[in-house]
């Protein structure tokens, strides 16, 4: 049903009806935003990138040939844009020896100190774990965990087989567990980073 209406709207947009595009934006902005958050782990950047993705999609809508669903096409653009953004950020960091804005991110709602620290700790662990993943594993993990897409949908977006998605997802989760285990071990060790971090507030 959604696919049919998407196709009708896309046809309208192709004919120059810009206002019709607003419907597509309203329909997919939240989904793309979630994908971007998964890749970037930062709300502000995710919102900016969501905007960029929609503009890119509008400019390239003429090349959309209805061979796949519009959502699949849009997700493909979003995954590629996120990956390119991360690459550029990496190059920038290398060039300017900048540590990045990872700790300056906004969390939206203000939280109690303990909860915020805990979340910060979780985010740090998640970032570490995501870095451990290969590019394909990361793509699959984010699409399935953040967007809760099925293996079939993920396979269509990434143009790989369902079996490959399953295998990549399994390996990604194994690596996640490995990072958690490392964290657990460092927590047990008296000189562990986690231990030191947790000990700080109590002097």
């Amino acid at each position: 049903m959604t696919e049919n209406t998407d196709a009708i709207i896309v046809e309208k947009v192709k004919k120059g009806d810009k206002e019709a595009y607003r419907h597509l934006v309203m329909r997919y902005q939240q989904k793309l935003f979630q994908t971007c958050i998964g890749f970037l782990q930062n709300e502000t950047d995710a919102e900016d990138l969501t905007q960029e993705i929609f503009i890119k999609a509008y400019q390239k809508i003429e090349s959309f040939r209805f061979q796949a669903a519009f959502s699949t096409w849009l997700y493909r653009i979003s995954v590629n844009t996120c990956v390119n953004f991360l690459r550029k950020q990496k190059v920038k960091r290398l060039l300017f020896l900048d540590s990045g804005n990872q700790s300056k991110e906004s969390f939206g709602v203000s939280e109690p100190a303990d909860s915020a620290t805990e979340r910060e700790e979780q985010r740090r662990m998640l970032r570490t774990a995501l870095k451990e993943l290969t590019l394909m594993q990361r793509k699959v993990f984010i699409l399935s965990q953040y967007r809760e897409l099925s293996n079939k949908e993920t396979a269509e977006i990434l143009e790989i087989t369902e079996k490959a998605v399953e295998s990549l997802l399994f390996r990604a989760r194994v690596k996640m567990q490995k990072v958690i285990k490392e964290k657990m071990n460092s927590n047990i060790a008296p000189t562990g980073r986690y231990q030191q971090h947790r000990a700080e507030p109590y002097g």
Partner: protein
Amino acid sequence: MNCVEFEIQLAKLKSGANPGVEFLEHKSQCPKCMELASRADELYHFIADDAKKTVSPFLSTRIMAELDKKALEVHISIQKAWQIAAVSLALIAGFNLALFMDYRQSPTDADSVLSEYFFAGNAGMEIENNWLKLSTDEE
């Protein structure tokens, strides 16, 4: 079930799925695996919370405004391109017209000889000098 098998099973486990008796048994007996499972669960809950974050309600307006701005930019750049093309064409046409007019007003052979005589320095001067010399000699 040993710890390695437990970890493999944990990685395969989909949220809400039944992990099986052996898995639950090992989890209750092994404190390390229990902690691992609970921490993994926490992490996936964190991800789920993260994914619930809502986009700003103004994003669609921002996107549409940006699209309008881009369209205007394209319109202006097309206008500018036309203006530049028109000015360039006018300049080329003017230059060609000037050349054509110059060609139309080009001197005849006789004019060329005369101008050569007046402006070509030595040749004319020599004739004139000889002339002057002759006239002095006659005197």
